[in-house]
């Protein structure tokens, strides 16, 4: 197959797609365009080991620097696509260049959501998405300084932990009752709360920032319930929104990201999407889901690229991610937005458990703290969507691998 395949977005999904096109023998032109100046890299370390200065950036690179040249991948890093013309099949870049395509791959990812709080533009207030963001936060870290973390989702929780581990005094503000409540619920969120409390973080829940205050730099925050916290810097982690602006007027459906079918195809011939930006129809969950995690970008990008080459294989990986906080390893697998039953295997007090999110008797997702082996063994339960007796899920003497398929009949 020949022609020009243009990939917009040089994160893990875009980089993986470019590499896969070559591995699969595509000998046309591949153009990889990314807004950041760096070649594709992995983001998980940015809130953890890289932020703490424990691992170099090179270790996060998706491929060695010379990989793209050696594989005939035409790169444009530090350049943004401003517009896609789906009629003439051209992308327009912010440096004035126009690149024609035969097939287009959208992997633009997300940008941090900006909340209009008074004082948000003061110096010393950071979001975290890119390595440049992580570098800016790193430069603020030194023992004894004081930080406020706004939002206790995964990014906020991980940053709060890394800052404490680096000797920074930390206060967090979150509108919910516990960290990660929206995703994990009250019971599991409570375990995460206690972990952070044990490490001396000041936790302010059911409250919101009213204003960031200071002359040039942020000096304190005030909250709607009257807290006033002095600080040297602030990290805001209030979620991400998909970057889809350049697709306006193309006819590509935008609804919580770029809407794609199980093959990662948009409704417009020749345009595909994958990674954080893609709202993908998942054959297991039988609905569209948008996943903002490493493994999804790593696997969905190449899967979509193979489909661009005509493989026609639905993407059906079960979403999975980890979140290390202090010495604790949290992992999640599956996808759920609501559940009617939480089944706990192990002990929340001892911080060694898997919790299954069930709806109508079926396991939609599972979260584990310090019980990774059981989490991995839960994947078939989610894939098959079989009803499993609660007593078996909870019995630590039962190997979860024996609960599905033919194995469950033994």
């Amino acid at each position: 197959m020949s022609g020009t395949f243009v990939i917009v977005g040089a994160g893990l999904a875009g980089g993986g797609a470019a590499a896969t096109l070559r591995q699969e023998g595509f000998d046309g032109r591949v153009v990889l365009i990314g807004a950041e100046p760096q070649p594709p890299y992995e983001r998980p370390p940015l809130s953890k080991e890289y932020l703490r200065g424990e691992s170099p950036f090179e270790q996060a690179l998706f491929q060695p620097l010379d990989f793209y040249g050696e594989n005939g991948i035409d790169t444009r890093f530090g350049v943004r696509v401003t517009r896609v013309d789906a009629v003439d099949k051209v992308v327009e870049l912010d440096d004035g260049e126009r690149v024609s395509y035969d097939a287009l791959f959208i992997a633009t990812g997300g940008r941090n959501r900006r909340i209009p709080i008074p004082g948000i533009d003061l110096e010393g207030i950071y979001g975290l998405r890119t390595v440049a963001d992580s570098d800016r936060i790193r430069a603020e870290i030194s023992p004894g300084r004081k930080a406020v973390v706004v939002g206790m989702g995964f990014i906020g929780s991980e940053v709060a932990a890394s800052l404490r581990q680096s000797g920074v005094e930390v206060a967090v503000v979150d509108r919910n009752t516990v960290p990660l409540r929206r995703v994990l619920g009250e019971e599991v969120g409570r375990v995460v709360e206690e972990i952070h409390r044990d490490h001396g973080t000041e936790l302010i829940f059911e409250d919101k920032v009213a204003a960031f205050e200071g002359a040039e730099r942020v000096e304190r925050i005030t909250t709607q319930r009257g807290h006033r916290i002095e600080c040297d810097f602030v990290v805001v982690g209030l979620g991400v929104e998909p970057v889809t602006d350049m697709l306006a007027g193309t006819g590509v459906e935008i609804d919580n990201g770029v809407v794609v079918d199980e093959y990662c195809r948009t409704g417009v011939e020749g345009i595909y999407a994958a990674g954080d930006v893609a709202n993908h129809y998942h054959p297991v969950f039988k609905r569209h889901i948008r996943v903002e995690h490493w493994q999804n970008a790593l696997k969905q990008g190449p899967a979509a690229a193979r489909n661009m080459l005509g493989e026609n294989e639905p993407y059906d990986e079960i979403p999975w991610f980890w979140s290390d906080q202090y010495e604790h390893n949290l992992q999640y697998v599956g996808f759920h937005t609501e559940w009617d039953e939480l089944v706990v295997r192990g002990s929340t007090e001892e911080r060694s458990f898997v919790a299954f999110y069930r709806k109508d008797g079926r396991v939609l997702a599972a979260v584990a703290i310090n019980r990774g082996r059981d989490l991995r063994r839960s994947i078939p339960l989610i894939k098959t969507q079989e009803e499993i007796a609660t007593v078996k899920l909870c019995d630590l003497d039962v190997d979860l691998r024996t609960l599905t398929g033919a194995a469950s009949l033994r």
Partner: protein
Amino acid sequence: MAEFAAVSGAGDLGEGEMRAFDVRGTKIAVANVGGAFHAFDDTCTHMACSLAEGDLEETTVICPCHGSEFDVTSGAVLQGPAREPVETYETRVEGGNLEIKG
């Protein structure tokens, strides 16, 4: 010159089982794949989790913390996030006991 050291108890591992042992101060995992013993560093090269706490699927060991996969016969990375291979060690069975060179 590396010497063989006996690993007490490793010979009792059933097929498909793996466990970590302290061998001269180093945590080494031993896996029994189809009756053949494979020994490798128990410490994952990514974030230092114990690989023996993970799963063994034929000749692949899967890290319980972040899902990195290694080939127990060579130590090679089969799936990230790990980048570096794990060290592997020669094994032999002497008088019913497993020995590891290293």
